[in-house]
C-alpha cells in the first residue's frame, strides 16, 4: 500500500468488463408512476437498462434479527424499488454499459415520473397518532419495542434524594470509510465470483445463494484489500445483487463503484437515538436507578441488523456501575430516510455517551466531584465476573484501577487552578471524563442465536493452520480485516505456538474459496474470537507435531516440548526437530505413529462462551472560544484495557482512530435530512470528517486485565476509542462553559450550537441553575421537545 500496489476492488479490471450506474430516487416518499428507459437503452455503449420488473430473484435482501416474543415490523426489501420509493437515494434502475462515463450519461437519460407522498422525517412526530405512514401495511410507524431491565424502577425513584431527567440526542452519522463501496461481479457459466468491499464474505455468499437459487459452492466472494469498513461494509446491499444479476444476464463481468454522494445517501448511517434518560441518586452520590427510553430512527427499510443495534445499548446500560435498578427501552421508528445499522461501536457509544454525560450532570447537581461519584458507584474489582442488574455477566474489570492510572497522567487539581486562571483571561478551558466499558468479541452463539437474542446466525470463528511439506505455514482465518493489522497479530499467535517465526506465517483471509465458513471482522471480534480460533488450531498442530517428534525421537509424547523453535525431549534441547523436519516426516509418512494420518494441518470452529468486556478511562481538555463557539481539543489522554497487549502499536492505532471517530461525531459530523427528506449533508463539503488539523496527538496508556473467556485473555479494542470519546468531549465542553450558565448541550457541538447555548443561557445570576431544556436537554415524559431529526437551527451544517 505504501508503494501504491494495494489491490482494492475498483483497481480490478477484467477482460470484457462493463460498468454499472444506478438511477436513484430523488424523492423521499413517492409512487413511481413510470420509468422511461428508452433514451438510456439507445445511448452509446449501453448493454442494458434494468428495473425491478427485470430482476428475477428468489429472495429479498435479508434482515437477520427475529427476536422471540417481540414483534418487529419488517418490510420486504428488494434491490430495485417496486412501485414506490421511500428514501432519497433508493435504487430505482440501473444502466450497464461499456464506458464508465457513458453509463452515467445514460443514467441521466432515464426519466422517472413520481407522484409524491407525504414525507415522514421527525421520528417523534412519526410516533404520534395520525402521523402519515412510511409503510401503510403496518398501520404504524413504530417498528418494534424492545426492553431489557432488572430491579424495580419505582423503588429506585422512591429511594432517591435527587432525580434528574435529560433528553440526550445521539445524532445520525455516516461511517464514511475513505474507500466507497465497490464490486466486480463475474457471473458466467453458472458460477459467480464477486469481488466485494465486504467485512464478511461468507455471509454475503450465503445470502446470494438464496437470492439466486444456486448452491453456495457455486459462489465465491473475494474481499481483496478493503479501504476501511467501520461497520458499513458488513451489510448486504442492493448494488452487489444487481451487478451479479446483470453479469449473468449480459454474460460479462460488471463493475459498480459508489461515488461519495451515493455513499452518503445509500450506504448505511449510524446511531440516531433520542435518549430520554432518568437517573436517581442519594445525596451521597449512590446511584439508585437509571432508566432510558430511546426513540430510534431506523429509516424506511432495514439492512442486515437495523432494528437490533439499539439492543447493544441496552446490554451495556449499567456502564461501569453497580446500579440496582435499570431499564432500557428501544422504540424503533420508520422514517423516509436511509437505514441505520452498525457503525463503529454499534449502540455502545450511545450508551457510554448517555451514561457518562448523565454522571457528570448528576455530579454537578449534587455538588460532588464527578470522579468521586464514579468511584462510589464503580463495580469493584473483587466482584468480577460481575452480573449486573439486567442479567448480563461482565467477564473481568478494574474500573478503579484504570481511573487511577488515568490520573497519574492528569493532575486534576492543577488543571482546576489553571482553568480558573485562564477564565480570568477570558479563555474557557474545560475537562471531561469518560469511564467506559463495552461488550464485544462477538459472540456466544447460544446467547445471540435464534432462541436467545434472536439473531439468525452463529458467531463462532473458523481457522485452519496448515503446515506445508517444506515447513512453511499458512493460517486461514474466517475474519476479514480491512486495516487492523490482523496479519501481524495472527502471525505472531500462530508462530509462537507451532515453532515458527512470524514472517514464516502467511495469513489468508477474505476469500470464501480458501477457507471454511467464517463470520468476518466487526464488533471487535477478530482477535478475541478469530485469534483464539487460530491459537487453538495452532495448538492442535503443535500437539500432533509433538507426537510425531516423540515417535521419531523414541520418547513419550508427554516428554516432548516445543522450546526455542524445536520439538525436543525435555532436558535435551540440542536433539530436537524443527517444524520443517516434523513436516517432512508428516508428508513423507513412512514412519508415523500407529494409526496417525499423514499431513499436518488442523481446523477449529471456536464459539466463545461469553462476550468480552473491555473498559477504560479517558480524559479530554478543550478550549472553547466563547465568541465564535469554536472548540479546540487541547489534550486527550486515554487508558484502555483490552486484556494482554499482543501488539501495542496496533492497539494504539485503533485507539487513535477510534477517538478521532468519536471526536468527529461530537464536534463536526452530522447526517441531516430536511423536512422534505432531502439529504442536506450529501458530500464531504457538508459532512465534515475531522482532518489532521482538527485533532491533537494522543496520550495512550493501558492496564491489562485478562479475560477469562479465551486462552489469549484478550478482549478487543477496535471500537473502544469511539465508544468513549463523545462523552469525554461533551463533558469537557460543558465543564468549560458552566461559568457562562451552560449546563448541557446536544451533539454535534458545532460553533453555532455553542454560541446559541451561551447566548440563550444569559448572564448567570447567583447559582440558580439554568433551564437545560433550552439547551436541548429536558424531558417532560411524553416525548415532545425539539425536532428529533436534527438540531433546532436549520442552517447548521456539519461543522467548520
Amino acid at each position, binding site marked *: *500500500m*505504501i*508503494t*501504491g*500496489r*494495494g489491490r*482494492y476492488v*475498483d*483497481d480490478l*479490471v477484467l477482460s470484457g468488463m462493463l460498468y454499472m450506474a444506478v438511477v436513484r430516487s430523488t424523492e423521499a416518499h413517492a409512487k413511481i408512476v413510470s420509468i422511461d428507459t428508452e433514451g438510456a437503452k439507445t445511448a452509446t455503449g449501453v448493454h442494458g437498462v434494468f428495473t425491478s420488473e427485470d430482476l428475477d430473484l428468489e429472495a429479498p435482501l435479508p434482515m437477520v434479527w427475529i427476536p422471540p416474543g417481540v414483534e418487529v415490523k419488517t418490510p420486504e426489501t428488494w434491490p430495485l424499488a417496486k412501485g414506490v420509493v421511500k428514501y432519497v437515494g433508493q435504487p430505482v434502475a440501473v444502466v450497464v454499459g461499456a464506458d*464508465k*462515463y457513458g453509463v452515467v450519461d445514460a443514467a441521466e437519460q432515464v426519466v422517472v415520473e413520481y407522484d409524491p407522498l407525504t414525507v415522514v422525517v421527525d421520528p417523534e412526530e412519526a410516533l404520534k397518532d395520525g402521523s402519515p405512514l412510511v409503510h401503510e401495511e403496518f398501520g404504524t410507524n413504530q417498528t418494534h419495542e424492545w426492553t431489557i431491565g432488572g430491579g424495580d424502577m419505582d423503588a429506585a425513584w422512591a429511594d432517591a434524594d435527587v432525580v434528574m431527567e435529560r433528553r440526550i440526542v445521539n445524532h445520525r452519522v455516516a461511517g*464514511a*470509510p*475513505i*474507500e*466507497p463501496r465497490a464490486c466486480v461481479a463475474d457471473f458466467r457459466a453458472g458460477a459467480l465470483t464477486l469481488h466485494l468491499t465486504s467485512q464478511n464474505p461468507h455471509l454475503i455468499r450465503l445470502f446470494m445463494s438464496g437470492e439466486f437459487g444456486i448452491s453456495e459452492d457455486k459462489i465465491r466472494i473475494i474481499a481483496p*484489500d*478493503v*479501504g*476501511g469498513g*467501520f461497520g458499513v461494509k458488513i451489510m448486504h446491499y442492493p448494488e452487489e445483487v444487481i451487478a451479479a444479476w446483470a453479469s449473468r444476464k449480459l454474460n460479462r463481468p460488471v463493475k459498480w*463503484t459508489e*461515488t*461519495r*454522494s451515493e455513499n452518503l445517501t445509500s450506504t448505511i448511517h449510524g446511531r440516531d437515538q433520542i435518549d430520554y434518560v432518568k437517573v436517581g441518586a442519594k445525596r451521597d452520590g449512590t446511584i439508585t436507578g437509571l432508566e432510558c427510553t430511546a426513540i430510534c430512527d431506523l429509516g424506511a427499510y432495514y439492512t442486515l441488523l437495523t432494528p437490533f443495534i439499539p439492543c447493544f445499548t441496552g446490554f451495556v446500560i449499567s456502564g461501569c456501575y453497580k446500579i440496582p435498578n435499570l431499564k432500557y427501552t428501544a422504540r424503533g421508528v420508520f422514517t423516509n430516510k436511509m437505514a441505520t445499522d452498525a457503525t463503529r461501536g454499534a449502540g455502545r457509544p450511545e450508551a457510554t455517551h448517555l451514561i457518562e454525560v448523565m454522571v457528570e450532570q448528576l455530579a454537578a447537581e449534587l455538588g460532588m466531584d464527578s470522579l468521586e461519584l464514579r468511584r462510589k458507584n464503580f463495580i469493584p474489582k473483587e466482584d468480577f465476573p460481575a452480573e449486573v442488574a439486567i442479567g448480563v455477566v461482565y467477564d473481568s474489570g478494574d474500573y478503579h484501577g484504570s481511573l487511577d492510572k488515568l490520573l497519574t497522567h492528569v493532575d486534576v487539581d492543577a488543571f482546576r487552578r489553571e482553568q480558573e486562571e485562564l477564565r480570568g483571561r477570558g479563555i474557557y478551558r474545560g475537562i471531561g471524563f469518560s469511564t467506559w466499558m463495552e461488550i464485544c468479541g462477538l459472540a456466544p452463539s447460544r446467547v445471540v442465536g435464534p432462541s436467545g437474542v434472536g439473531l439468525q446466525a452463529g458467531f463462532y470463528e473458523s481457522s485452519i493452520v496448515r503446515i506445508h511439506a517444506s515447513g512453511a505455514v499458512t493460517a486461514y482465518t474466517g475474519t476479514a480485516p*480491512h*486495516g*487492523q*493489522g490482523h496479519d501481524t497479530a495472527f502471525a505472531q499467535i500462530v508462530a509462537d505456538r507451532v515453532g515458527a517465526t512470524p514472517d514464516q506465517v502467511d495469513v489468508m483471509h477474505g476469500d470464501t474459496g480458501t477457507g471454511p465458513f467464517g463470520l468476518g471482522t466487526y464488533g471487535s471480534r477478530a482477535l478475541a474470537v478469530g485469534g483464539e480460533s487460530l491459537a487453538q488450531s495452532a495448538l492442535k498442530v503443535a500437539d500432533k507435531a509433538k507426537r510425531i517428534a516423540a515417535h521419531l525421537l523414541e520418547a513419550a509424547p508427554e516428554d516432548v516440548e516445543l522450546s526455542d523453535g524445536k520439538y525436543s525431549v525435555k532436558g535435551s534441547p540440542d536433539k530436537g526437530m524443527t517444524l520443517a523436519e516434523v513436516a517432512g516426516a508428516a508428508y513423507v509418512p513412512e514412519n508415523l505413529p500407529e494409526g496417525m494420518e499423514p499431513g499436518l494441518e488442523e481446523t477449529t470452529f471456536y464459539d466463545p462462551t461469553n462476550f468480552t468486556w473491555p473498559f477504560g478511562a479517558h480524559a479530554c481538555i478543550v478550549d472553547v472560544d466563547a465568541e465564535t463557539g469554536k472548540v479546540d481539543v487541547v489534550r486527550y489522554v486515554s487508558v484502555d484495557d483490552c486484556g494482554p497487549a499482543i501488539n501495542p*502499536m*496496533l492497539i*494504539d*492505532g485503533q*485507539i*487513535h*482512530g*477510534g*477517538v*478521532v*471517530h468519536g471526536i468527529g461525531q461530537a464536534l463536526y459530523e452530522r447526517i441531516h435530512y430536511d423536512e422534505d427528506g432531502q439529504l442536506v449533508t450529501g*458530500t*464531504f*463539503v457538508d459532512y465534515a*470528517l475531522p*482532518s*489532521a*488539523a*482538527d*485533532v491533537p*496527538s*494522543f496520550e495512550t496508556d493501558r492496564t491489562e486485565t485478562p479475560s477469562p473467556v479465551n486462552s489469549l485473555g484478550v478482549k478487543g479494542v477496535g471500537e473502544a*476509542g469511539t465508544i468513549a470519546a463523545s462523552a469525554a468531549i461533551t463533558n469537557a465542553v460543558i465543564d468549560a462553559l458552566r461559568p457562562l450558565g451552560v449546563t448541557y448541550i446536544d451533539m454535534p457541538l458545532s460553533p453555532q450550537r455553542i454560541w446559541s447555548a451561551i447566548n440563550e443561557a444569559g448572564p448567570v445570576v447567583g447559582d440558580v441553575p439554568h433551564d437545560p431544556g433550552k439547551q436541548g436537554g429536558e424531558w417532560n415524559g411524553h416525548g415532545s421537545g425539539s425536532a428529533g431529526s436534527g438540531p433546532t437551527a436549520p442552517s447548521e451544517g456539519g461543522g467548520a
Partner: protein
Amino acid sequence: MARVSMTVNGVQYDQDVEPRLLLVHFLRDTLGLTGTHVGCDTSNCGACTVHLDGDAVKSCTVLAVQADGSEVTTIEGIGSEGDLHPLQEAFWKNHGLQCGYCTPGMIMAGADLLAKNAAPSEEEVREALAGNLCRCTGYHNIVKAVLDAAETTKGVPA
C-alpha cells in the same frame, strides 16, 4: 477527443482522451496506475493527490488535458519495494497506515510539504495534511511518520 502528451513517473505517454476525462481516471484507468485513489467527489479527501510539475495537486480536480505537456509523479513513482522513499519507509515503521486507502495521497502530500519545508513542526505537518482525510489512524502516526521522514532526510539534498 483531445490528444494529450505527458510524462508520468518518467514514462512518456501520448493518448486520445475525452476533454472531460479527469486526470485521476487517466492515471488509474488509461495508464493502469491504480495507486492513486478516489475517495470523494468534491475534492475534500485528497486520496487522489499526485505531483504535477513538482507541486501536489488533487488529480480528481485536474483534467487530463490540463496536464498536457506536464510531468506527473504518482505514488508508484516515488519509490518501490527495496528502494523506498523515506516517507514510505517512515509510514511503514511508524504504523502510519491501517487500511492504506488514504496512504498514497498522504505520502504525496507529505512529500510536497518536505520538499518545501524540510523541518516542519507538528502543527505545520497537521496544517499541510488538512486536505487529506483519514478515517482509520486518527492522524497520530501519520504525523509521526512525516516528522520521522523529515528527521531522516535532514541535510540530505532533495
